[in-house]
């Protein structure tokens, strides 16, 4: 029924026992509101601590962890390596815990206006989160699981490669950002806008870019959207399908290399160096700035040199 994490806190608590039919109905505390003013019932509950943001910050950083914490404002703890956990129940306005690499334990019941939790130590989130605005969990490479019940306007799980699924009960009303996540689809019931690096995309672009066609990308009028589609599609495959004008060619340790240019309507041209790896003979296509006009200059730029005369490798493998 429940599991215990490495630090001894229940990740999932046991389900409450069903009430005895003959017993008088126990008073049920009201569900805490999302507002910053907690309800009187919660203020009286055992173990609950009501504080200002300043007191809450000092309390959490001291390591004295209340089970339930109600903060009368925003709780900002960005960049705190001392922070390892948050209370089991937390209510505040804005929760900000970006860049807390040792923070692994998050609330199981969270009521907040917004959550900013990028680059933390989280692996699993569980429980019931009710957030008015955005939940930002991007850049968490170990994150594998979201709370069973998560309601928010928007969610970012960008650059969370181990997050393979979203919970079926996830409720969002605005958008979900998925670039660099491990997601390959959305739950069937979730009808929400999908974003890739901040740009609205369809499910095919986000999750099945192999189904795109190069000519479709060329016909996309919006430059930002076209760039996202091109990135999802892959420059190698794009050049394979549309070709490109060879504006220079020469030889390096891998054999012939070519500098290709593809003009784009309303945008700078794609200029890319096609090279072969001298060890594997695999071909690579690497994009360089559009002002580059020779293979030598392109190879030097890719290696970090602005001047091609500074780039003379003794050995390339």
């Amino acid at each position, binding site marked *: 029924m429940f599991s215990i994490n490495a630090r001894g806190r229940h990740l999932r608590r046991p389900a409450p026992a069903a009430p005895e039919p003959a017993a008088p109905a126990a008073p049920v505390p009201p569900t805490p509101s999302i507002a910053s003013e907690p309800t009187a019932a919660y203020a009286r509950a055992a173990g609950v601590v009501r504080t200002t943001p300043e007191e809450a910050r000092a309390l959490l950083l001291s390591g004295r962890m209340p089970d339930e914490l109600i903060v009368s404002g925003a709780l900002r703890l960005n960049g705190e390596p001392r922070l390892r956990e948050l209370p089991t129940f937390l209510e505040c306005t804005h929760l900000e815990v970006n860049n807390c690499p040792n923070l692994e334990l998050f609330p199981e019941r969270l009521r907040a206006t917004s959550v900013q939790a990028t680059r933390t130590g989280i692996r699993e989130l569980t429980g019931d989160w009710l957030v008015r605005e955005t939940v930002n969990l991007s850049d968490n490479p170990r994150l594998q699981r979201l709370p069973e019940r998560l309601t928010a306007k928007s969610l970012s799980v960008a650059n969370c490669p181990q997050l393979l699924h979203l919970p079926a009960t996830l409720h969002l009303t605005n958008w979900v950002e998925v670039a660099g996540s491990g997601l390959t689809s959305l739950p069937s019931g979730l009808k929400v806008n999908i974003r890739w690096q901040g740009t609205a995309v369809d499910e095919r672009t986000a999750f099945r870019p192999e189904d795109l066609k190069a000519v479709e990308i060329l016909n996309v009028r919006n430059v930002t959207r076209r*760039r996202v589609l091109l*990135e999802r599609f892959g420059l190698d495959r794009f050049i394979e399908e549309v070709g490109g004008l060879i504006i220079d060619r020469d030889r390096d340790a891998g054999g012939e290399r070519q500098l290709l240019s593809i003009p784009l309507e309303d*945008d*700078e041209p794609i200029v890319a160096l096609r090279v072969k*790896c*001298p*060890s*594997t003979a695999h071909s690579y296509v*690497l*994009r*360089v*700035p559009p002002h580059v006009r020779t293979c030598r200059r392109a190879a030097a*730029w*890719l*290696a*970090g*040199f*602005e*001047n091609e005369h*500074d*780039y*003379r*490798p*003794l*050995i*390339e*493998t």
Partner: protein
Amino acid sequence: MTQTSSLYRHGDVLIGAVAVLPTGAVPRPGLVLAHGEHTGHSHRIRETNAASLYAYGHELYLVVSAPTATLIHEEHRPIELPVGVYRVWQQREYTPSAIRTVVD
């Protein structure tokens, strides 16, 4: 960036000889110069006692203390690096929104 002395390219990793290790460079454990993002392969020195790595801010330095040290990778032919101090960095790639480090 100016590079006038010995320079080697091992896939997307570049190794350029420099005169001295910067003052304040901090020893870094291991001998892995760069990890592959998707393959799990790495560019690394084969001989454990032949070289050391140092970090100087975001820069990486390699000190080869033996007569030679061998730079290896599962997909690239090895390179014998002579004794000396080297700066290590990775290729970059252009996109309209940002210049990125190339990762294999």
